[in-house]
């Protein structure tokens, strides 16, 4: 550390730098809070707008606090107004998304775990090339596969169905899940597996008894990543499904764009929050795993 100068001029200097430090500190917090308000602003606006009546929306500004907590628009967004034609609401599409997400996440995670296991613990000649072959799937722009996929789903008789979307999301999730599990299992000592093999344990026994019990963190990362990606997907949903089979993001977009007589912004905002809440909850509850997935698999757009 530095020598302890006793001269008065140094003390003055120290005093001065203390002031600049305090000033800098305030500046730092000011900028950080400024950006925080930029990031929080849309969420705040969404929430307060969803709680206002249309009358209040016209009279106040974006930031005005609602006069009362009015959840009517939420009920309309979720369950409709109860009349027949033209009454679109999110409930059935929310369930479509659940029915799509659960199997797609399960299958893609399972396949990824298996391929990651083979690629690291049962290595064979040319396995790096197989990994590269799979990895490339993370990067393709999906526009390059939309046309043949639409035809294939038609041929299989599962276009415009939840089953079709499960297939699509499972297949295009495999490169990511493989990447996650492969990078995780590569740090597990191979000696463990070798010892078990000498003891006569087979392929599946080693996986279920040795690898699986220590896989919890990477399973969480993978499931969160896949869940967020599939829940938030719009391209596949809007291309391969319409009408009643559509997932929630497609339904939200249709609701917001539908040009019925009066635009009900409060219902729009309530719908947007409903469509965003599952992934937000996951993010708040498991942020650490969310970020870990993001930084290792984020090349997907």
């Amino acid at each position, binding site marked *: 550390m530095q020598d302890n100068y006793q001269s008065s001029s140094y003390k003055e200097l120290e005093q001065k730098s203390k002031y600049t430090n305090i000033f800098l500190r305030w500046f730092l917090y000011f*900028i*950080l809070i400024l*950006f*925080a308000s*930029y*990031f929080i*602003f849309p969420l705040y606006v*969404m929430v307060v707008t969803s709680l206002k009546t249309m009358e209040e929306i*016209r009279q106040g*500004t*974006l930031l005005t606090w609602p006069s009362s907590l009015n959840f009517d628009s939420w009920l309309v967004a979720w369950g409709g107004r109860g009349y027949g034609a033209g009454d679109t609401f999110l409930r059935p599409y929310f369930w479509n998304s659940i029915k799509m997400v659960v199997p797609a996440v399960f299958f893609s995670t399972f396949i990824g775990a*298996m*391929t990651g296991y*083979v*690629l690291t613990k*049962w290595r064979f000649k040319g396995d790096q090339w197989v990994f*590269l*072959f*799979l990895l*490339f*799937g993370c*990067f*393709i*722009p*999906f*526009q*390059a*596969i*939309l*046309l*043949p996929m*639409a035809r294939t789903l038609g041929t299989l008789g599962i276009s415009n169905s939840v089953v079709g979307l499960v297939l699509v999301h499972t*297949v295009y999730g*495999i*490169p990511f899940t493989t990447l996650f599990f492969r990078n995780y299992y590569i740090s597990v000592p191979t000696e463990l597996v070798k010892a078990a093999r000498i003891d006569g344990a*087979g*392929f599946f026994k080693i996986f279920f008894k040795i690898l699986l019990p220590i896989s919890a963190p990477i399973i969480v990362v993978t499931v969160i990543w896949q869940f967020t990606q599939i*829940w*938030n*997907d*719009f*391209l596949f949903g809007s291309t391969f499904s319409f009408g009643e089979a559509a997932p929630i*993001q497609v339904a*939200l*977009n249709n609701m*917001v764009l539908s040009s019925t007589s009066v635009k009900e*912004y409060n219902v729009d*905002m309530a*719908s*947007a929050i409903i469509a*965003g809440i599952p*992934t*937000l909850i996951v993010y708040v509850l498991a*942020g650490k795993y*969310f*970020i870990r997935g993001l*930084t290792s698999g*984020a*090349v997907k*757009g």
Partner: protein
Amino acid sequence: MAFFLIKKIFTMFKWLEKNLPKIVMAPAVGLIGWFVYGFVLWTLYISFTNSKILPKYELWGFGQYEKLWASRKWLISVDNLLVFTALFLIFCIVIGIILAIFLDQKIRAEGVLRTIYLYPMALSFIVTGTAWKWILNPTLGIQKMFIDWGFENFTFDWLVNREMAIYTIVIAGVWQSAGFVMALFLAGLRSVEDEIVKAAKIDGAGLFTVYWKILLPMMRPVFFTSFVILVHISIKSYDLIVALTQGGPGISTTMPALFMTQAAFHKSQVGLSAASAMMMFMAVAAVIIPYLYSELRRENAR
């Protein structure tokens, strides 16, 4: 005879056991081979045919590519993509770095701030687009807010202004992705050993110099990763535009991804849309292949 059969079954089991890992790999490899490589090749082939509503298989040469680059809409798409990508990159990286460096100063409530900066990443572009569309609409959004506050001549009509609409997509896109760049850089800064910073400080370097001369140059791989990821996001951007402007007003905010789906599914120009998809594919490949190459080299060097 029975013995022969048993022996045969036995050798079959042996074979199965030996090749089990490869058999387990087979579905993944098969699926990706078919649905990624096969499909891309199919699209490539179709881009060389004169397919309209339905795919035709007689080769037609580069006609679709000529049509594509003569199309005004495609040229606007490419132009928009370049403008969007440039601004999106600059703002995301600058904001991301500023936030990461500031958060790195032993800030109180760092966890809360970090959560706030990054939460947009958990939302879909459709949700983001819906929110920003409401905020930016001139009649009831930000413009009205400022007018009500007394700025009577305040106008902010970018969303419905042909010249400016593309910048609203930048605003929403940056809002969604800047926090992510922050997370990447923060992780990068935290992985630098304290000793390096301490040594520089003892040598009399100020905080600014430490970051500008020492830490940021060390972040080159993070810059590279952010660059690749952001370019990738921007080339593929589709949802955000659909939710925010649908390519409008007119076709002023159209982008390649939007062009592709419209040509394919609304305009019965299958061949042309395949050609546009291949252009996107090549653009992504031009960014990704050097990235993969350098990543693999780094991994092998380890």
